[in-house]
């Protein structure tokens, strides 16, 4: 038990969550106390992980199980920022729909701590436990709207498939453990590279390759990459919109971190094997995600397929096995998270009690009803489509550059073609908002702090597009 202080943000957040859980029992269910306490805990954790990021060198602790480096502190900071946004946007939605508020916020906090653990874990056991902490909270969050049978169905699907994927991941990890005799990813890396004293024969690494395949299946499921994407549209559609927002934003950052820690941190010497698998998954994801999204009339399903295609782009940076590629993917993951956050934030703000914005027609004429929400949605859509000057353009450009630089020109060309196809359904949303007549005339009321949050979020989408250097330099620093 050394260097316990590198996990202070997580330890603080977990302790604060337990406190919030207890407070939630005693306060009035209608009051916002639990909400403000949750935001406060996230904010303090954010400050803690932000101040931690000062030192440049990686510090490992807890017998190698936990690492604090610029990679983890950058991702943790963004995870917490996105989680704060998620809580802010979902507050009124959750209150109006009679979802138990205190449990909702507590589960969100638990999920966030799980993600932070995943980001820092350099030990397969820690990583798996962090993942389960996240996944279990997510299953419960999806089902939390109890009177909604669609939510129950989505939760069931998510739970069964998620458990299967966890099983695959664990099986793969156990095979790797069998081949290398260690759970510590740094040690595994040394053993497989042949630099450790007890490195196995080349024949024994076959066991590690065997495990790698299963690990990739598990990771691809958590990311939602084709062909392990079947759960994504159903869960996105069935879950309450605020939970969909949560699932589609911060966990992608955490899953990306896990991918990097496992494949680059531990199994980099097997890159010839995982490169091909990731390239195929990336190509399939951009094609399937973009093509099927066109046919969707439900906006949550459309965003689900859009997520699948973005995961394809995310993987495109990793297939090259270059540091530039990894940092491009990291940039992609971070910017994708807050761009989608803005899109879902608008959907939640435009919903009201008894009426959820779910199908595309609900957005018709949003520009006439509430120009502010419509413009934030527009920013988010052009960013997702990859139109300059929004941040999505720069993100796409850098992963495509990395793919071309690493000799995956075919993949980059496929990505460009498919993002042109994808632009159709993003621009259709903008067209509907500004050029169609409203079908609904009820005035949209948005709380002041939500308006402020959305404004900051929209500014981030456009601002980081004009000046991507801030996130990009952090991403490059994480891999140097």
């Amino acid at each position, binding site marked *: *038990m050394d260097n*316990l202080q590198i*996990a202070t943000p997580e330890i603080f957040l*977990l302790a604060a969550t*337990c406190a919030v*859980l207890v407070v939630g029992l005693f306060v009035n269910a209608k009051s916002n106390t639990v909400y403000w306490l949750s935001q406060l805990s996230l904010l303090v954790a954010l400050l803690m992980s932000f101040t931690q990021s000062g030192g440049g060198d990686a510090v490992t602790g*807890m*017998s190698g*199980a*936990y690492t604090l480096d610029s990679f983890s502190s950058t991702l943790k900071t963004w995870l917490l920022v996105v989680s704060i946004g998620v809580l802010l946007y979902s507050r009124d939605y959750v209150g109006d729909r009679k979802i*138990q508020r205190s*449990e909702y916020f*507590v*589960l969100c906090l*638990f999920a966030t*701590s799980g993600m932070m*653990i995943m980001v820092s874990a350099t*030990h397969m*056991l*820690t990583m798996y*436990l*962090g993942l*389960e*902490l996240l996944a*279990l*909270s997510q*299953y*419960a969050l999806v*089902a*939390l709207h*109890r009177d909604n049978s669609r939510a129950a169905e989505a939760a069931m699907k998510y739970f069964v498939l998620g458990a299967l994927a966890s099983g695959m991941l664990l099986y793969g990890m156990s095979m790797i453990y*069998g081949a290398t*005799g260690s759970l510590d990813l740094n040690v595994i890396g040394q053993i497989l590279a042949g630099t450790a004293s007890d490195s196995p*024969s080349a*024949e*024994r690494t*076959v*066991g590690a390759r065997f495990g790698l395949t299963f690990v990739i299946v598990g990771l691809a499921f958590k990311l939602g990459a084709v062909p392990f994407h079947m759960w994504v549209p159903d869960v996105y559609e069935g879950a309450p919109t605020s939970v969909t927002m949560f699932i589609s934003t911060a966990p992608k950052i955490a899953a990306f971190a896990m991918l990097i820690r496992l494949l680059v941190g531990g199994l980099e010497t097997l890159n010839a094997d995982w490169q091909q698998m990731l390239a195929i998954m990336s190509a399939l994801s951009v094609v399937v995600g973009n093509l099927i999204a066109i046919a969707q009339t439900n906006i949550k399903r459309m965003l689900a397929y859009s997520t699948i295609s973005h995961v394809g782009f995310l993987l495109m940076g990793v297939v090259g096995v270059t540091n530039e590629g990894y940092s491009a993917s990291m940039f992609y993951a971070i910017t994708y998270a807050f761009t989608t956050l803005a899109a879902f934030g608008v959907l939640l703000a435009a919903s009201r009690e008894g009426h959820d914005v779910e199908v595309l027609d609900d957005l018709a004429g949003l520009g006439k009803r509430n120009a502010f929400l419509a413009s934030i949605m527009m920013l988010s859509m052009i960013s997702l489509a990859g139109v300059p000057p929004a941040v999505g353009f720069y993100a796409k450009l850098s992963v495509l550059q990395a793919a071309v630089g690493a000799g995956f020109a075919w993949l980059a060309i496929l990505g460009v073609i498919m993002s042109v196809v994808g632009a159709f359904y993003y621009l259709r949303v903008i067209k509907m908002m500004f050029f169609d007549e409203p079908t609904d005339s009820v005035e949209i009321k948005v709380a002041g702090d939500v308006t402020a949050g959305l404004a900051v979020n929209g500014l981030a989408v456009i601002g980081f597009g004009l000046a991507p250097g801030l996130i990009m330099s952090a991403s490059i620093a994480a891999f140097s």
Partner: protein
Amino acid sequence: MTFELFAFYCFAAIVVFAATAVISSRNPVHSAMFLVLTFFTCAGIWMLLEAEFLAVTLVLVYVGAVMVLFLFVVMMLDVNVEPLREGFVKYLPVGLLVGAVMLVEMIFLITQRYFKSDQFPVPERASADQLSNTEMLGELLYSQYLFQFEIAAIILLVAIVAAIALTMRRRPDTKYQTPAVQIAASKKGRLRVVQMPAEKRS
């Protein structure tokens, strides 16, 4: 043949017999009892491997807790197994085929060079004066793996919170009693003596 080998073969034979009986016996209660026997003998095999902690856990958790629940469910639900067995003969060839393929795969894997047992280091035998593995596990769990252990605890907490949040409902129309109010009840609050003039019987 050493005694150890002899014991292993005895246990292995019982495991195979009991596992077959689990799926072939007609009475679900018998199946559950055979499963208990399977677990017990597996625990014996683990004992032979000097994994006494796992053996004890298997008996305590699976036999003691899980199987008891299982038996409760089987007895309470009164499952009619006859419909489940229909088509047994019809699907038997497919089942046998799948089983055979799996068997061949397994044999193939463990006899091929990559997964052969000589590819993996033989664990050293613990000497008699070394710690028992329960103690060793305990030391590891509370020192090196303390952080992971705590996360596991948090996961259990999440499971409890989620289970309660998903199932507990406050129903305003439920009738219930509050003992404190009941005890505090006095004659004054409940009984009213009404004075009435006497009336003649009509």
